[in-house]
């Protein structure tokens, strides 16, 4: 690994990344929050959120990306997503059925509607976003370790 490579890609890529990465993250969050009224949802939104961090890592190198979202934080978010999802399911269980939709459904096609589904979407997006980022990091760092040994 050369030293320039550590710092990331060329100036053009870095500039474009700086301009777009926030929009990508925002779009992912939009997809998550509108999962129950339009196509998309927790998984798709989570993938887009993870891609924004992967984008950052590809353009600027891993140090910058880790400053935004470190491996430990990603792991915490991943577990938080899973536990949140399970808690939502168990709250429904306390109300009668596992995964019962216990919040009022509201009016269709509004942002605040559909009961627990938006909450589930948020939990899933946390899990998927952090998990996909962690998978990417695990695969990339493993390769770096292998090469540095040689």
């Amino acid at each position, binding site marked *: 690994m050369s030293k320039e490579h550590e710092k990331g890609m060329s100036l053009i890529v870095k500039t474009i990344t700086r301009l777009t990465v926030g929009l990508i993250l925002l779009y992912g969050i939009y997809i998550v929050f509108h999962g129950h009224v339009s*196509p998309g949802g927790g*998984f798709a939104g989570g993938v887009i959120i993870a891609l924004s961090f992967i984008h950052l890592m590809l353009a600027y190198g891993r140090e910058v990306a880790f400053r935004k979202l470190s491996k430990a934080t990603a792991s915490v978010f991943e577990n938080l997503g899973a536990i949140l999802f399970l808690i939502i399911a168990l709250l429904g269980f306390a109300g009668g059925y596992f995964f019962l939709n216990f919040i009022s459904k509201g009016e*269709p*096609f509004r942002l605040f509607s559909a009961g627990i589904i938006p909450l589930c979407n948020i939990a899933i997006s946390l899990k998927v976003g952090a998990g996909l980022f962690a998978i990417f990091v*695990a*695969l990339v760092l*493993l*390769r770096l370790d*292998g090469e540095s040994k040689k």
Partner: protein
Amino acid sequence: MIIYLLCLVLFCCGIYCILRKRNIIKIIVGIIISEYAVNLFFILTAYRVGGRAPIFSSEAEILNMVDPLPHALVLTSIVIGLATTALLVAIAMRIYEKYGTFDITKIRELKG
């Protein structure tokens, strides 16, 4: 009918790739191909003639929509495929670290 048979052909391509190729990465690609063939087949079973995408909207009512259930199921199976593929790639990278090769004819220390 022909479109279902093409799915089968794609599935067989994947299986051929798994059985015949020596490179670990190519085997993983073969698994991905046959997985997508199965997903494609599942999606095709949902199709109704002239059906539209199963999305409700407040503006217009959709009368003839395709079966939405297989879409949800295939989404689940894609997620499972993602997990399996990530695990396989991770194992393949570790194997390369230990054995220094991707050739399965050289990675034969266990005789099943």
